[in-house]
């Protein structure tokens, strides 16, 4: 069967610095893949290339069989042309990136109205539903600045869910949080995983990756060093670099 997401021979350079040196993987519907690795290994860049927030230097991204970011004849898409493709992928950022001038409800509902073209009442209902899912419906009228980091991140997750995406992208969703707020966000992501959503997840939370992901990919210096079933890679790594990294992470 064909995969939901297919990343083939992905390269990314900034000037002379080659950050990704040929990454390829497939993700089938409902599968959860965690990218782990030391900082600078290219895992965030890899994730950001999937929805073209970073333009790959070369390589192919297929979402549901459709080429992302390029039209026939390799012609690159403009941001305008990319918009409908990006809408199919819900992205959660390290820094939350809620829009500070919009209320919590509007943060979630505005893209539903403006991108999906739903009416205001439908968008509002969907926003409330998604906020309830992340247990933030009681703060629907609050402004983002009134929320804790963990609450903001849960709203950001609701915002991404409201896109009704084929695929969820998480870019270190708990790295900017105070330690005591990490749990509430991980719990929400865990619940989404249990719903059978397709997820690509960059994380430093090794135990979380082990428990939530089906597969883990360990990146080192722009290449896949090791990959396999999550529990196997994390509990019985084969490669020396993976072992060294994991032992550092476990302290």
């Amino acid at each position: 069967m064909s995969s939901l997401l297919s990343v083939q021979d992905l390269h990314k350079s900034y000037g002379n610095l080659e950050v990704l040196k040929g990454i390829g993987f497939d993700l089938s519907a409902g599968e959860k893949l965690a990218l782990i690795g030391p900082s600078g290994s290219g895992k965030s860049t890899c994730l950001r290339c999937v929805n073209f927030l970073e333009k790959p230097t070369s390589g192919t991204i297929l979402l549901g069989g459709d080429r992302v970011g390029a039209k026939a004849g390799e012609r690159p898409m403009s941001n305008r042309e990319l918009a409908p493709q990006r809408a199919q992928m819900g992205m959660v950022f390290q820094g939350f990136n809620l829009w500070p001038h919009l209320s919590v409800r509007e943060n979630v509902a505005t893209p539903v109205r403006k991108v999906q073209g739903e009416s205001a009442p439908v968008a509002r209902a969907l926003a409330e539903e998604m906020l309830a899912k992340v247990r933030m419906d009681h703060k629907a009228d609050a402004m983002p600045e009134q929320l804790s980091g963990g609450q903001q991140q849960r709203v950001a997750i609701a915002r991404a869910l409201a896109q009704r995406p084929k695929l969820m992208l998480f870019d270190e969703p708990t790295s900017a949080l105070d330690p005591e707020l990490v749990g509430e966000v991980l719990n929400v992501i865990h619940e989404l995983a249990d719903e059978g959503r397709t997820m690509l997840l960059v994380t430093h939370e090794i135990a979380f990756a082990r428990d939530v992901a089906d597969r883990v990919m360990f990146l080192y210096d722009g290449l896949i060093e090791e990959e396999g079933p999550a529990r196997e890679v994390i509990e019985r790594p084969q490669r020396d670099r993976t072992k060294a990294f994991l032992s550092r992470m476990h302290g």
Partner: protein
Amino acid sequence: MLEFLDVYARHADQWGPRLADAAVVSARISILGFMLATVVGLILGLAQEASSRIVRTVVRGYIVFFRGVPVLAILFLIYFGLPGVGIVFDAEPAAVVGLGLAFAAQMAEVFRAGLGAIPRGQWEAAMSAGFRPAQTLFLIILPQVVRIIAAPVIVTFVALLKDSSLASLITVNELVLEGRALATEYFLPLHIYIWVGAMYFLIAFPLSMLAKYLAKRARGARA
């Protein structure tokens, strides 16, 4: 002192309506000029971040030119100069275009500062939500920029309003030119120019206070 004020009492009927009409002209060229400056300034402000080096250089050149040349010279150039190459403006449109293009350079810098204050993540979140670039700009970025730049925008408008008096020199019948006409008619230039000055001040001063308040509030909000 009473004598001095008595002059106003005696002439208010003649001066009042004429200066009021002229004030409408001043307001009109200021507001239209400012609207032009805002639109052109926004485009220039955005174009300064363009990926094309040629675009950036042209925009930079525009800004350097219009900030370095007196507004009066620009008005003369448009009203007296351009007919030489077959482009003829009436006085009032010439004033609007001149003020607009000159202050667009100012507004471009204001917009650039405001756009620069918005974190990249705001654009990224909007784009990954599926917003098109124009939607991102108008729904997400500009509403935040407007709050940041409210004070400098008002300061720029006040500067433009005061410089609109230069339009008197290309025959636009605005406050200063009408004041001069009255001054020669009634031989009371002191009284008349005080009145004219007061009309500018009554608009400019409250706006300046508002700008000060907004600037203070913006600083407080970020602290």
